[in-house]
């Protein structure tokens, strides 16, 4: 017999982690560095691509400005000014990028970082290559472009994490099926029966494995998002953006 308590107790939503925004402001250096590493991993590609297209900077300028931006984020406590009640983190960071570049352009120079400044190891060549695979957005849809690249970045990181988790749990096939059926271009042409034949599985296994992988993918995405948002409301709004759960 089910009752309300049972129904609601089964809600296995991940326990809220300490928000990265709080951690990034932490006095504890290790905690702070961990948080910033995750934020950089999620945002550096969208920031680089945004600078390239929105501000029409060349490859080298965009690299420098991206490094500059994250240098400010690391050293100058940018996030202290972020108020989750007023804006989404994503919007805040994009506006910070705009301000940085406007200031740089006004000054007619690039800020010079100190000689001992940490330079982030970022794979700009890959990001540049990806840029050639997307449709160039119109000038008035740059916000949408930044959002799209952010979604791409979060999904990529989530898939990477899911792949590791699946391997650790002995469920590599589950992930492989997700990759084949929901990511690969060719996958959409296949029926479950054909996928089962291709991977020498039973059709019911294919549907079960896919259901598992999709559920876990959703969980990982939401966990990452939970970390990267400053409030419950922001989390819910960003989840809508990521998963499209509210199209109204």
């Amino acid at each position, binding site marked *: 017999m089910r009752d309300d308590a049972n*129904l609601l107790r089964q809600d296995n939503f991940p326990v809220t982690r300490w928000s990265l925004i709080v951690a990034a402001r932490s006095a504890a250096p290790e905690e702070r560095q961990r948080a910033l590493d995750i934020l950089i991993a999620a945002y550096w590609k969208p920031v680089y691509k945004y600078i390239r297209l929105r501000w029409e900077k060349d490859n080298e300028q965009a690299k420098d400005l991206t490094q500059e931006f994250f240098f400010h984020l690391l050293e100058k406590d940018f996030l202290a000014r972020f108020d989750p009640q007023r804006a989404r983190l994503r919007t805040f960071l994009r506006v910070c990028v705009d301000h940085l570049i406007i200031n740089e352009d006004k000054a007619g120079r690039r800020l010079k970082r100190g000689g001992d400044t940490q330079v982030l190891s970022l794979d700009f060549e890959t990001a540049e290559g990806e840029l050639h695979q997307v449709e160039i957005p119109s000038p008035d849809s740059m916000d949408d472009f930044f959002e799209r690249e952010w979604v791409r970045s979060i999904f990529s990181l989530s898939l990477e994490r899911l792949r590791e988790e699946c391997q650790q749990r002995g469920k590599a096939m589950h992930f492989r099926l997700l990759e084949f059926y929901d990511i*690969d271009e060719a996958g959409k042409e296949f029926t479950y029966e054909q996928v089962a034949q291709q991977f020498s599985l039973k059709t019911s296994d294919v549907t079960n494995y896919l259901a598992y992988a999709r559920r876990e993918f959703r969980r990982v995405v939401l966990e990452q998002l939970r970390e990267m948002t400053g409030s419950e409301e922001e989390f819910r709004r960003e989840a809508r953006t990521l998963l499209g759960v*509210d199209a109204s």
Partner: protein
Amino acid sequence: MKWLSDQALDRLRAAADSPDLSGTGYVLLDKLGAGGMGGVFRVRDTALDREVALKVLGIADSSGEFGARLLREAKIIAQLEHPGIVPVHDVGTLPDGRVFYTMKLVQGRRLDQHRDTFGGLPERLRTFQKICEAVSFAHAHQVLHRDLKPQNIMVGPFGEVLVMDWGLAKLLGPVSEVPAEGDKAPKIPGSRVALTGYDPAEAETSEADTKHGVVLGTPGYMAPEQARGEVEVIGPRADIFSLGAVLKFLIEATGRTPKALAAIAGKAMADDAQQRYGTVEELANDIAHYLDGLPVSAYPEGPMTRLWRWTVKNSPWLLLIVAYLIMRALFILWRAR
């Protein structure tokens, strides 16, 4: 990790959005729509081999607040067994913890999409009467809809009407009920008891969205007191305002709106709640009177209009009398020759 194309993003998004129904006895067919709290999907009930609609939270929530709200919505609808209110079949949770409920899969079109296919004004008004019947039934069970609008009303292929989306429904209690003068909203004594297994007091106090200042509803269809967030004074007359707006929506597409109908909509949509109809039945009665060619309470008639109405109503007798008088006059003239 390989680069994700835009198409891959869309497919991953759809895959993550699709509810995992394993272990629930339902099989996913397709998505029907999305709302503020989540999505609605067409699914097959494997036990009964029939298609039903499944409403599920978009995101599971750590506090359980949204899950509780969806559950509350399901329970409210389940208590309202009426042909004009979509029946709930089942509630449960998905493997990922999201609360869902299933309900009858409604075939038909939303009222806003259906409006231009109505045969004429009488058909529109009869549809409106059916909407009133469903809302009146809910009021009789102490339930306010609070989000009545054409988008939340379905019209079936045989003209059946279903009032949908009770997500903002409010259960009236002694504390939140407005003691309005002349308010004849039907009350069923002990209706709280009738809501078996459901504690309205608990729902009232646990509802974050019924606090003063919280605005819930749809502009254009929301009563002024609701738009101002005066949650504690919202009563049946708020729904009557919304019904007035629905009536206006239905009749304005017919071109010239009869004055009496405009007056009915105007009275239902009065800014001051006390100036509106006291109950949904009163509003529905005025519509019935209009359809029967009788005077309506919202439109005081002048002497000429009254005379004309009397004339039209008694036209068969009047014609007989006139015919008699003409025959009589002709007979007198013939005799005089």
